[in-house]
């Protein structure tokens, strides 16, 4: 194959539709007779439902139907468990999945209680005000440590101590290692990850076609195939009767793969009940409560070291807030548990977590998916160790990096994909070197910082390392087909939310089939176009679906060559495919267009040889044996205003190894976007819940997404260690940018303000000017809390 596109910064095929306003998003679906849904959501976090009276709502002109849990009859079922717990010995897991509409009891603010269907969204929302809901408030469970106490209120009446899960994983023997240590550090860390806030909220449109016996659902999901399968099961239909389309989706970042959201259960069923199409589009206020996000973990961690800074072992005990239900299993805390090990040799590890039910919205993966929490803990431990042992913070990291001859490296515990946590490949030291050089680390620590300080400037640097397990199984597939017009059609089952799949997959196919990349028409996220698949998550689209595209393209390539060799009556070796045609090498003028071959491959008359398959078409699947490990180092230089404690990022460096790169332009975009979300998580975004489970900042005016003024220009660099686990050598890159932000900010702020000398450690995320002031002025802050104001 002559590579023309793979690895090149190819501009995106999907851009034209998006730039001209012609791309179809779910809310753009307009259908004759379309009805609109609005949901009544609980305004309290924990209550028993005494009664719901929807009679006035039903009377309102323009209202077509109102449903409560009661009205759903046998269709009312708790949602399926999306990810079962991994096979870890001694695991405790209490499965409590979300329900379509609250029945008897409400477990978080925003939990839906009733759904109104009306001629317009405006009328549907009017009718919500007609519903009389009588509640008996219950004590609210918010604090993770209090939730575990025997006398705590219970989110689920039958789950004592609100324990959703309890998991211990070990490697080696930490206690023995610690006994031999020269130095032990113990600290408590809290890490709060926020909400993904895609600019497009969620939405569902459903249409039942009674004549065709077919349900069509447009859904902002990252996993259309599983939505189809689940809906078919719930609705008593065959999978073939359900078509789920995830059209253009306006950002996902994880929460759009949660399933089943109540609206995904309700809207299709109601469309069938009423035999009318129904649309529900989440508004931004609803999004804060009705879409899953991430939240807090509290880690009590301990690291054992030799006096020269080598890690002997780590012990960590943490609490994880899973919210009111746990349909996504243990993915987030397992990621935290595994990713804490980072790029370092940690011979002994003892990690235990307890996932806790609270009266807060459901926690499911959001870009990074718990990895941030683990990275923060180990990176902060490294910083504290460097300080206490008098070792440079970059050097203590270098000292402990897994050496390049140690791969594949076995970390012995179980990862989120149920496979042992092994690092397939890597070479970490050059990544660190490049990052240090790009940020100007040596010059800065050897005088640069001091000189700036003499000028009255508070400038600091942060350097943080991470690994990311990406590209996990089970599998994805792709169907590649040469059309009669010579274009290539390519379909895969994953959904796409801006990752550039229409281009990167086209690049892979175009190289194999010798066509212009713009002539590869990619379809993603339509279950009628491709039947099988798992979805877009865990930085796996390019790795798993990308390799499936390559496999299918290879088969089509072979079919093309075989047919062309019969056509020309020559050997396949004498043929080349390029520019949309097959020609005989060295014989000018002897060529045949791919489209012509496609027509030949589907003869209308005559006999074919046994075993002949029609068309130039192939479907192939790829399932990796395990995840592939990407790695990176971020470095950041900031200046802090010591009065206001606001900061400016002077320089931001990303050095990343995600194996072979398909499209550096798209990869840069993924890195930039990830970093922006990391910055938001570290210093601007904070879901502020009060003790009653009320979110105090549920608007984009108060929950601060970084703007073009907060996100700096970034310097990107790469190293390439191809993955041995897939033929293309790809590792995932979608989430990495967002992962080390918290660790970076805490370190850089401490450095800028000289907090070590003041005895202040930053052991929590998010930080903010306000929070920094409180940490720097604990007495005044305590006074502020005590005063009635």
């Amino acid at each position: 194959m002559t590579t023309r596109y793979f690895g090149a910064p190819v501009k995106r095929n999907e851009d034209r539709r998006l730039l001209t306003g012609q791309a179809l998003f779910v809310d753009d679906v307009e259908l004759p007779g379309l009805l609109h849904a609005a949901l009544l959501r609980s305004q309290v976090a924990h209550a028993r439902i005494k009664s719901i009276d929807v009679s006035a709502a039903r009377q309102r002109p323009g209202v077509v139907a109102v449903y409560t849990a009661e009205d759903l009859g046998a269709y009312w079922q708790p949602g399926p468990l999306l990810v079962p717990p991994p096979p870890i010995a001694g695991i405790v897991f209490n499965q409590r999945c979300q329900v379509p509409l609250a029945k008897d009891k409400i477990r978080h603010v925003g939990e839906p209680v009733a759904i109104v269907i009306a001629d317009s969204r405006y009328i549907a929302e009017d009718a919500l005000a007609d519903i009389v809901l009588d509640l008996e408030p219950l004590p609210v469970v918010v604090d993770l440590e209090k939730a575990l106490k025997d006398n705590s209120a219970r989110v689920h009446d039958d789950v004592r101590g609100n324990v959703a899960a309890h998991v211990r994983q070990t490697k080696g023997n930490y206690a023995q290692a610690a006994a031999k240590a020269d130095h032990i550090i113990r600290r408590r860390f809290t890490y709060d990850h926020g909400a993904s806030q895609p600019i497009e909220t969620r939405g569902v449109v459903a249409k039942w076609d009674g004549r065709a016996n077919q349900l069509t659902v447009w859904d902002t999901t990252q996993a259309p195939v599983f939505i189809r399968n689940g809906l078919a099961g719930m609705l008593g239909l065959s999978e073939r009767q359900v078509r789920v389309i995830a059209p253009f989706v306006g950002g996902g970042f994880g929460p759009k793969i949660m399933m089943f959201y109540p609206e995904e259960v309700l809207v299709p069923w109601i469309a069938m009940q009423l035999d009318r199409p129904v649309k529900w589009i989440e508004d931004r206020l609803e999004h804060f409560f009705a879409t899953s996000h991430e939240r807090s973990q509290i880690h009590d961690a301990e690291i054992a070291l030799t006096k020269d800074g080598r890690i002997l072992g780590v012990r960590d005990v943490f609490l994880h807030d899973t919210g009111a239900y746990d349909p996504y299993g243990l993915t987030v805390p397992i990621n935290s548990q595994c990713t804490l090990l980072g790029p370092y040799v940690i011979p002994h590890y003892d990690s235990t977590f307890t996932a806790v039910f609270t009266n807060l919205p459901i926690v499911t993966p959001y870009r990074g998916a718990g990895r941030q929490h683990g990275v923060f803990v180990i990176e902060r431990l490294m910083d504290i160790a460097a300080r206490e042992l008098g070792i440079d913070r970059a050097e203590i990291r270098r000292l402990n990096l897994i050496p390049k001859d140690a791969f594949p490296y076995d970390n012995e515990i179980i990862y989120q994909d149920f496979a042992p946590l092994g690092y397939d490949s890597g070479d970490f030291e050059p990544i660190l070197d490049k990052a240090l050089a790009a940020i100007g680390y040596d010059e800065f620590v050897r005088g640069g910082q001091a000189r700036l300080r003499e000028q009255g400037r508070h400038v600091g640097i942060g350097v943080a390392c991470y690994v990311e397990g990406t590209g996990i199984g089970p599998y994805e597939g792709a169907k590649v087909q040469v059309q009669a017009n010579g274009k290539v059609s390519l379909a895969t089952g994953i959904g796409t939310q801006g990752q550039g799949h229409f281009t990167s997959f086209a690049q892979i196919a175009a190289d194999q089939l010798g066509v212009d990349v713009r002539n590869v028409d990619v379809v993603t996220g339509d279950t009628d176009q491709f039947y099988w698949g798992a979805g877009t998550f865990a930085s796996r689209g390019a790795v798993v679906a990308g390799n499936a595209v390559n496999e299918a393209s290879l088969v089509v390539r072979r079919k093309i060559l075989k047919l062309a060799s019969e056509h020309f009556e020559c050997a396949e070796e004498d043929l080349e495919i390029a520019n949309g045609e097959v020609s005989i090498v060295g014989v000018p003028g002897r060529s045949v267009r791919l489209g012509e071959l496609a027509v030949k491959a589907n003869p209308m008359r005559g006999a074919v040889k046994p075993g002949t398959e029609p068309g130039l078409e192939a479907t192939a699947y790829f399932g990796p044996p395990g995840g592939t490990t990407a790695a990176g180092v971020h470095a950041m230089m900031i200046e802090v205003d010591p009065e206001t404690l606001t900061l400016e990022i002077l320089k931001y460096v990303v050095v990343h190894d995600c194996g072979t790169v398909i499209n550096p332009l798209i990869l840069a975009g993924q890195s930039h976007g990830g970093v922006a979300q990391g910055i938001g998580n570290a210093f601007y975004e904070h879901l502020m819940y009060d003790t009653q489970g009320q979110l105090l900042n549920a608007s984009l005016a108060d929950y601060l997404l970084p703007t073009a003024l907060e996100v700096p220009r970034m310097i990107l660099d790469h190293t390439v260690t191809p993955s041995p686990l897939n033929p293309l050598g790809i590792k995932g890159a979608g989430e990495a940018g967002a992962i080390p932000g918290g660790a970076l900010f805490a370190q850089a702020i401490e450095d800028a303000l000289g907090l070590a000398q003041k005895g202040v450690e930053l052991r929590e995320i998010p930080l903010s000017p306000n929070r920094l002031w409180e940490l720097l002025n604990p007495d005044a802050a305590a006074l502020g809390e005590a005063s009635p104001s």
Partner: protein
Amino acid sequence: MSNERHTIVVTVNGQRYAREVESRLLLSDFIRHDLLLAGTHVGCEHGVCGACTVQLDGLPVRSCLMFAAQADGHEIRTVEALASPQDEFHPLQQAMHDAHGLQCGYCTPGILMTMTAFLDAHPSPSEPGVREALSGNLCRCTGYQHIVDAVLLAAERMRGAR
């Protein structure tokens, strides 16, 4: 609530529409669901994200913060009118494509309507100037860098074309 109806006449992308609307109908909903110009997107419905930005008499406004009735007698331009009738990109659309200034593309129409107006008023913008102008539009995918690059590139090309 009063659901009084109004007859309004608006010109959108050069075409005149006379419609009867409820008082409370948002301009964004009118454009998207009455006129079926779905290129204008709605992200927050409280004026923060900028996805719904359209040009009203040449100036960018958030269509989720206006009622359709308030647009009576005014001229509106949406993303659908940016490319030429021959489907030739506006220089900013071209630069967004060239510089990979969009990922999911949901915020893109609002950014185009904000920044084309900005470029008309500021033919030689600085990077800080572009960032300031862009700061009223939220993008969750790109980290803004490639959008800033695209705006600067478009400005350069537009200056060259003059």
